[in-house]
C-alpha cells in the first residue's frame, strides 16, 4: 500500500494542470448588458430607460436578457421610445418578482430568434388603451412582414397544470421556455389590456414554433382584456394548463389553430373572434383545438374551461374542422358561431372525451354552425350538438351578425360574475364593435 499511496500523491499533486481549455471565462457571467448600459448613460441624450438590460441601438432601445442572464430588475418601457427585443428576453429569474411595465402606445419589435418570456413570480403590466394599444410586432418594415418574423409572448404562471413533474406543481415549458405551473390558482402574472402580438411564431427549435401568446400555467389573478394576435405561425393563443380568464380577444391570421389548449386549462373566455387568413395557413388549422393532455387523456385536473360568445371563421379553402375536442378535454361552450370550415364544425375524438360527453362534463349550448360537412362528425360529436344547434348561415359582415342572423337572440349564456349577460351567439352583438380602433388588419 505504501507504493500505491506515494504514487497517488505524486500523480494527484503534480499539478496535472487541468486547464479544461475551452469555452468562456467564469468571471464574465455577470450582466451582459451592464457595460453597454454604462455607455448608454454616457451618451446622455437617449430616451432609453436607464436599465442594465437596455441599450440604445440606432433608433430603438434594445432589450437583452436571455435565459442565462434574465432581467431581474424592474423595467419600465415608456411611450417616448421604440423598443427591440434583442434575442430572447426573460423577465425574472423564476423566483423573485420582476415587473415589466409597458405604457400605452409603446411598440416593441422582435427580430428573428427573439421572444418575450415572463417567468413565474414576475409580472407584465401592459395597459394600453383603444386609442393607444401596446404592440408587439415584427421588426421588419411594413409590407415585408409575415408570420414567423419573431417569437411571441410567453407568460409562465403558478396556476395548476396536469403534467407537473415536481412537488411544486411545475413542468418545463415548450421547447425550453422556462418552468411553469404551480399550486396557486389565483396567481397573477399582471395585466394585458389592449395588447397586440403580430407576426410572431418563430421556430424556437427544429421541432417547435412559438405561438402568438402562450399562457403557461397562468392564474386567474391575471387581467387579460382586449388582446389580439395577428398573423402568427403556429397557434394564435395557446393555454398550457392554468386558470387564466380572457375577454375581448381577436385572433386573426393564425396559420395553425386559433385557440388551443392542453395540460388542464380551467379558465374562462368571453367575446372571442378567431378568423383565419387567406395569406396564412399551414394544414389542419382549426378554430379551436382542445386537449386535456396528449400523454394521458385522463390526467387531472382536466382541461375544463367555460367559453361563451366566440366566433370561429375559417379561411377560404380550409378543409379542417372548426372545433376539435379531443384527448379528454372537458368544458362548457356557450353561445358560439362556427362558420366556413370545409370539414365538420365539431369533432370529438378519444374515448375519454367521449366519456365526458356522456357524463355531461363536456357540453355545448346555443350553437350556430355553418360547415361544409355539417355540424358534427359521426360519433359523440353528434350527441353533443343534438338539440343544441342551429344549422344556418350566421350571416356575418365584418364579424357582426346582420339583421335576422340566427346568432341573435339565441338564448342566455353562462351566469357568472366573469361573464357579461348576453342573449346572442358569437363575439359580437350586431351593433357594438369592441374591436374597433385598436386591432391590426394589415397582413404584411
Amino acid at each position, binding site marked *: 500500500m505504501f507504493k500505491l499511496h506515494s504514487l497517488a500523491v505524486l500523480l494527484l499533486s503534480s499539478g496535472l494542470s487541468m486547464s479544461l481549455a475551452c*469555452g468562456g471565462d467564469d468571471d464574465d457571467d455577470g450582466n451582459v448588458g451592464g457595460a453597454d448600459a454604462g455607455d448608454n448613460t454616457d451618451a446622455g441624450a437617449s430616451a432609453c430607460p436607464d436599465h442594465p438590460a437596455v441599450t440604445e441601438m440606432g433608433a430603438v432601445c434594445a432589450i437583452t436578457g436571455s435565459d442565462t442572464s434574465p432581467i431581474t430588475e424592474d423595467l419600465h418601457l415608456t411611450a417616448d421610445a421604440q423598443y427591440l427585443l434583442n434575442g430572447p428576453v426573460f423577465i425574472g429569474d423564476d423566483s423573485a418578482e420582476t415587473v415589466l411595465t409597458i405604457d400605452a402606445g409603446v411598440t416593441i419589435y422582435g427580430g428573428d430568434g427573439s421572444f418575450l418570456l415572463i417567468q413565474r413570480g414576475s409580472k407584465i403590466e401592459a395597459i394600453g388603451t383603444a386609442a393607444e394599444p401596446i404592440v408587439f410586432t415584427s*421588426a421588419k418594415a411594413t409590407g*415585408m412582414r409575415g408570420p414567423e418574423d419573431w417569437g411571441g409572448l410567453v407568460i409562465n404562471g403558478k396556476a395548476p397544470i396536469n403534467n407537473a413533474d415536481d412537488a411544486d406543481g411545475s413542468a418545463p415549458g415548450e421547447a425550453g421556455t422556462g418552468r411553469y405551473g404551480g399550486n396557486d390558482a389565483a396567481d397573477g402574472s399582471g395585466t394585458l389590456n389592449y395588447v397586440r402580438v403580430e407576426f410572431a411564431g418563430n421556430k424556437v427549435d427544429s421541432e417547435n414554433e412559438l405561438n402568438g401568446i402562450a399562457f403557461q400555467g397562468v392564474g386567474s389573478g391575471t387581467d387579460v382584456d382586449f388582446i389580439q394576435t395577428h398573423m402568427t405561425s403556429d397557434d394564435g393563443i395557446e393555454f398550457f394548463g392554468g386558470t387564466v380568464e380572457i375577454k375581448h380577444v381577436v385572433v386573426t391570421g393564425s396559420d395553425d389553430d386559433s385557440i388551443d389548449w392542453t395540460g388542464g386549462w380551467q379558465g374562462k373566455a368571453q367575446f372571442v373572434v378567431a378568423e383565419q387568413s387567406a395569406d*396564412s395557413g399551414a*394544414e389542419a388549422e382549426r378554430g379551436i383545438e382542445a386537449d386535456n393532455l396528449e400523454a394521458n387523456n385522463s390526467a387531472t385536473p382536466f382541461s375544463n374551461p367555460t367559453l361563451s360568445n366566440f366566433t370561429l371563421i375559417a379561411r377560404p379553402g380550409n378543409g379542417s374542422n372548426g372545433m376539435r375536442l379531443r384527448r379528454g378535454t372537458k368544458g362548457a361552450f356557450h353561445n358560439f358561431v362556427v362558420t366556413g370550415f370545409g370539414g365538420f364544425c365539431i369533432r370529438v375524438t*378519444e374515448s375519454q372525451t367521449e366519456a365526458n360527453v356522456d357524463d355531461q362534463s363536456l357540453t355545448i349550448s346555443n350553437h350556430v354552425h355553418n360547415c*361544409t360537412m355539417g355540424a358534427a362528425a359521426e360519433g359523440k360529436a353528434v350527441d353533443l350538438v343534438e338539440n343544441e344547434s342551429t344549422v344556418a348561415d350566421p350571416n356575418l359582415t365584418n364579424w357582426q351578425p346582420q339583421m335576422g342572423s340566427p346568432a341573435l337572440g339565441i338564448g342566455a349564456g353562462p351566469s357568472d360574475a366573469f361573464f357579461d349577460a348576453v342573449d346572442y351567439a358569437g363575439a359580437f352583438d350586431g351593433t357594438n364593435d369592441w374591436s374597433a380602433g385598436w386591432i391590426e388588419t394589415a397582413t404584411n
Partner: protein
Amino acid sequence: MGKFVLAACILLLSAAAVAQPGPSAPEVPFEPTTENSEAQTPAPAGELRVLIFIEDEPAQGVSLEIPKAGSARSNKDGSVALSGPPGRTTPILRAPRHLFPAIGLGEGEPDIVISLEPLDIVARETIEVIVALDLAGKLVKVDVEAPGETATEVEGEASFEQRMKLLPIGIVRGRVFTGPSNRPVEGAGVFVRGAPRDAKTNANGEFELELPEGSYDLVVIHPKFTTAKLKGVEIDANRPKEVRVAVEEATPALDDFVVTAPHIEGGVASLVAERRESASVDEVIGAEEMSRSGDSDAAGALRRVTGITVIGGQFVYVRGMGERYSATLLNGQSIPSPEPERRVIPLDLFSTNILESVVIQKTPSPDLPAEFGGGVVLLRTKSFPDEFTLSASAGTGMVSNATFRGRPDHVGGSLDFLGTDDGSRELPSEIRNKSPLREGNQFQPGLSPDELAAMGRLLKVNYDVEDKTVAPDTSISLSVGDSFKLKKRPMGYLVSLSHGRNHNFKEEINRRFIASDTAEGGLELNNDFQIGQLSQTVSGSGIFVAGFEPEEGDEVKATTLLLRITDNETAQVTGRSDDLGQDIERSRLRFVERQLFTQQLVGKHQIDRLNKGIAEWRYSFSRATRDEPDRREYFYADESANPDEGPSDFQVSARPAGNQRVWSDLSDRVHDIGGDYAQPFSIWSGLTATAKVGASAVFRERDYDTLRLTLRAPRMLSAEERRLAPNEIWGTDRLNAENGWILEDTTQPTDAYQAEQQIQAAYSMVDLPITEAFEVRAGARVERSRQKVVTFSPFDTDAVPLQTELDNTDVLPSILGKYQLSDRLVLRGGYGRTVTRPDFRELSESQFRDVVTATRFVGNPELVRGTIDNIDARVEYYFSSDQLVSLSSFYKSFESPIEQIDLGGVDRSVSWDNADSATNIGLELESRGRLGFISEQLADGFASVNVAMIKSEVVLGEDSSGVSTSKQRALQGQSPYVVNLQLGYDDASVSGVTAVLLYNVFGERIRDVGRLGSPDIFEKPLHQLDFVYSQRLGEHWKLKFKAKNLLDQDIRFTQGIKVARRFRRGRSFSLSAAWNWGE
C-alpha cells in the same frame, strides 16, 4: 512475446512416449506369439502410437507398418497408431520422399524407409514412440519410453536454446498426484513439447522446469498411469506457474480425458485456461468461437456470453445493466466513442476479423477503470502470427426480406460502396460560413429573404425516394503476417484488411399508446405508423501490428487500427400522426459515417536485478468520429376534409419539422498513458507473490456540432403546388422569396457542445498465494475524474456559455479470493467498490434535442456520481481443458444510481436524476462439454449452455422520478433471464467439418419507461436460431455457410396489453470461401 514461443511450441512438437526399450525387453519372438495367440484364444491387443516429426514439424502421410499387423498413415499431427498382438516387433516407417526437401523431389523416387529398433507390444497398453527426422531423411532421435533421457542436441533445437537466451525465463512447478486422496506419483516423466527439457517427479510427486516465456504443452508420462497432457501452460517470468496434474490408473475408459483441442490463441481451450487461471470472475470468448458461431462483429459475438444481452445490435448490457455500466477497453486502453451523446462504445464497430478474443471481466479489480457496473469488455486485437501467413477470403450473402427485392432507396454518392461520401452531401461552404443564418430587419443586420432563397438554391436537390432492387451482401478480406529476425532480434508484423457490404430491411409497425382511464386496457392509440427502412451498411477495418524485441526480456509493440462503418438509410413512415391529427407520409434519408482510429504503443521491460520484475508502459491516441452529412427528412400530410374516409390528399407540410436538412459532426479524442510494475517476491510459505503498482492518465475531449436547415414558404402555397413530388417542390426554380421557399436556419446554440474528461488513477495490488491452493488478490485504486461540459443557452448564440464541471476522487478497494480445491474445482469470491459517472451532457442544464431521435433532453447539473458495491461468488468445475461447469452469483448495491427520467410538460423531455437506490442480484450457470460420453459417434460433438437469471430494482424516489409512471422498476434493459445454447460438431482435424447450431433467447425487458400514467414499454422475448457450417477443403481452402435468424420471429414491444412495435429482420444466408497459406 508469447507468440514467438508459441511458434516454436507448435512447430516443435517433440514429446516423449511410453514403451519398453528394446534391449531390456524379454526376448520373445514376435511372430510365434502372434501365431500362437491367433491359434488359441485371441490375446488382447496392444497399441503402438508413433509421433513423427520432420525438422520439428509433425509429418503427415508417413506410413507405419508392423509386420503381420498392417499399416496406417500419420495424420496432420504426425500421429499414427496401430493395434497389434502383444509381443516383440520391428516397426517400419515409410515416408514419401516429397517430405524431405533437402534431398530433392525426384519423380518416382522411392520412399524413405526407416526401420525402428525392435520393441514390445504389451496387451492393453499403448506404447508411444517419438521419431524425429531431419530434412534429409536422417534419423535424429527416437524416444521410446525414455524418461529422463537427455535430449540430443540437434539442429532444430538450436532455436529453443536461442529462445532460452532471448526470453525471460519462467518456472513451472507442478505436482502429479492420483486417486481420491491425491497420492503423489513418483517417477513420472514430464516432457515439454517443443523444448528439450524434461523432469522427473520426486517422492512428493513434484517437479520443476525452467522455460522461456510462452505457452507450452506439457506431457506427463508414467508407465502405470494415464498420460496427462496439459495444453497451453503459460510461462510467465513474473510468476512461477503452479500446475497440478491428476493422473489415473491406466484404463481405456479415461481416453476422452485426453485433450484434443489444439492450443491456439483464441482457441476454446486456451480461453478456458485463461478463465481458469484468472483471479477474477471472467468470461472469455475467442476468435475460434467467434468464427464458429459466425458472428461478424463484437456485439454479435458477445450475446453468446453468459449474462450478456445486446441492445439494438450495438450496446452490451452486462448482467442486465445498461450501457452506462459497461466500459470497453481495447488492448487495455481507453478508446473514444462515436456516439453523439454518450461515452459508451458501440460494439458493432469491431469486426471479429480483427479480434483475438474478448474478455468480460465481471469483478472489479484495482488495475481496471473505476467506472464499472456490470463488467468491463476487454477487446484484444489480433497479434502477428508465428510464421508467414497469407490469407484471403470472399463471400456473398442474402437477406430473405431484402435481397433481390424492390426496397426504398435514394440517390447517393458515387463512392457510397466504399463507405465514404464523395462530397455530394457536403454543406455548401457559403452556408457554413454564414451560419447561423438570421433574417435581418429594420434594426438588425441579417440576410434578406432573397438572399435566404439564394442560399437554399445552393443545396443539392435530392429528396426523392425510389424503390431499388437490393443487391446481395458481399465481403472480402486479406491478411498477411510474419515473424522474422531483424539484426538477430525477433520481430513480427500483421496487416489485415476487410471490407463488407450488408443490407437489411425492416418493416415495422410502430404505435404509440397513451394513458386514458376510459380506453380499452387504459391505453388510447395515439400514433399509428408503418415504417419501411432499408439500411445499406458498408464496413471496413484495417489493422497493422508490429512487434520487436530490442533486448532480452524487452518488447515493444505497435498497433494501428482503423474501423469504419457507414450506414446509408432510407426510411418511409406512413400512418396516423395524432400530434398532427393527420395521416402523414414521412421520408428520411440518412448517411452516417462512424470511424475509430487508434494508435497504440506498448512496451515491456524485465528488470533482472529486481528479481525479474516487469515494468510495462503504454500510450495510445485514438479518435472516434461520427459524421452525418445532409440528413433529409420531410413529410406530406393528408389534407382531405374527411380523413375518416381514408387519406386521399397528401400535401407537403409547412410545419416546423415539415422538412429538415441536418449536418452533424462529432469528434471524440482520447489519449491514454500508463505504466505498471510487477514485482515478484517470496513469502513465508516459499511461494511467490507478486505486488503490482500502476498509474494511468486518460485525457478525453470531444466536439460536437450540428447545423439544421429547413425550407420555409413565407407565403402560403397552393394545394396544387404542395402536392408535387419533393424534387419538384423544392427544385431550384421554386426557391425564391416571392412565391416559393427560402432557407431558414433552425440550429440552436445547444446543437453544439464541447466536453472534456481527465482521469488520473493509481493503484496498488498484490497477488498473494496464502497456500498453494488459496490465492488472494487485494488492492485499491485511487481515481480522480474531472469532467467538464460547455454548452450554450438554447436561444442565444451570444450568451455566455454554460459550463458544468464534476470533480471526484474516489478510493476504491477490492479483494478477490481463489481457492483451488483440486485441479478441477475452483472457488472464487470477491468484493469491490466501483463508481458510475454522468455522461457529459447529462450534467448540463442546457436543453438540447437529440439529433437521432429528436427527443428533447434536459441535463441536470445536480447529478452526482453514484457508487456500486459488488459482491461475487463462483464455483467452477473443469472436466478437461475445454469442458467445464460453472455457477456464479452476484449482488450489487447502488447508491445514487443515475437513471433517465421523464419530465412533465407538453413536449416529451427526458432528463436524468440520481435515484435513491438500486439493487441487482443474479445467478449464472454455464456448462460446456464434449458429447463423447453419450456415444462414441458423438466424440466430435460438443454442447454448451449458459443461463443467467437476474433481478434488479431501482427505487426512483418522489423527488427524482419526474413523471415516470413506475417509481420502482427493473433497470432499463435488464432481462430476467438470458439463455444461450450451442450444439456443434467439430471435426476440423480429420474431415474438416465444423457445424454449429446456436440458440439465444432473452426475457422481456424494459426498453422505454412510461410517462404520465402510460405503462413501461417492454421488449418481448425473442428466440433466435443460427446455423454455421464450415468445411475445410485440402490444405488451404475453407468454405463457410452461415444461416442467421432462422426462426425470423417478430421482434415485439408491448405496452400494457398493446403491441407498440413489431418488425422482423428477415433470415440471412451467406457463403464464403477462405484461402490461407501458413498456419
